[in-house]
């Protein structure tokens, strides 16, 4: 399991690979924290893009990301409250946040079309990584059926985002 995920993620060749390959055995409070953190990361990236992007499709995409990830995270918060689960910080969440902060700083230095391209390419890669992690690690590890179901809903939504990002990226070439 650990090895398979590591290979899958490494094959994608993205920055977040190391973060998501850590910690093979996750508890529900940790899974909830990772999923929520992954959402916050994309919301922050979207907010930066809403002010920095120049391409109108990229700007619209960023708006969609902020809206959707906020909606999913609200569901997640409602669920943990209902289940009386306290999301628990962990090494995977920490590594994800650290890498996201570095990426945000890196993107922050770019301008115009170079920024647009870097943002959308990162969105494709980021959603790929998160979707792989959901499919191979987070969903199989979740024990509460409602948490599992929300993660499955999230996966469908984020697969849609991945396709949307790919479409926007293809339109820019």
């Amino acid at each position: 399991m650990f090895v398979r995920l590591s290979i899958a993620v490494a094959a994608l060749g993205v920055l977040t690979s190391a973060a998501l390959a850590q910690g093979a055995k996750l508890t529900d409070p940790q899974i909830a924290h990772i999923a929520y953190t992954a959402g916050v990361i994309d919301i922050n990236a979207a907010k930066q893009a809403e002010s920095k992007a120049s391409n109108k499709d990229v700007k619209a995409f960023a708006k969609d990301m902020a809206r959707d990830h906020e909606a999913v995270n609200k569901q997640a918060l409602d669920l943990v409250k209902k289940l009386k689960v306290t999301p628990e910080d962990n090494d995977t969440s920490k590594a994800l946040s650290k890498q996201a902060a570095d990426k945000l700083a890196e993107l922050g230095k770019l301008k115009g079309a170079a920024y647009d391209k870097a943002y959308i390419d990162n969105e494709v890669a980021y959603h790929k990584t998160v979707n792989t992690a959901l499919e191979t690690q987070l969903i199989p590890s979740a024990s509460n059926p409602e948490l599992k179901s929300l993660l499955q809903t999230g996966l469908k939504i984020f697969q849609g985002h991945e396709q949307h990002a790919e479409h926007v990226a293809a339109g820019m070439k």
Partner: protein
Amino acid sequence: MSPGRYLVTLALFALGAMAVPAHAATIQIVMENMVISPAEASAKVGDTIEWVNKDILAHTATAKNGDFDVTIAPKKAARSVLTKAGTVDYYCRFHPNMKAVLTITP
């Protein structure tokens, strides 16, 4: 039956007949897990489309030719009455990979 009651009954009948024309149908189109189904639907002018959004996100049904643009809140439904014939490609503005076709006959 007294003449008064008869008149009331008649009036209700007439109202009912006006509110629901016999030929108009309501067609349900569902948005769930980022997919519109059925992907191809047909209806007639005067029919009502009931857009049902089962997702936790907002969606839209936006006609490419501008004939309609309906926003459907999460876990809600919205209705629109078809006024023009044609084959209409539509999509969700928030999730453009959600696409479908509605064929409207006169």
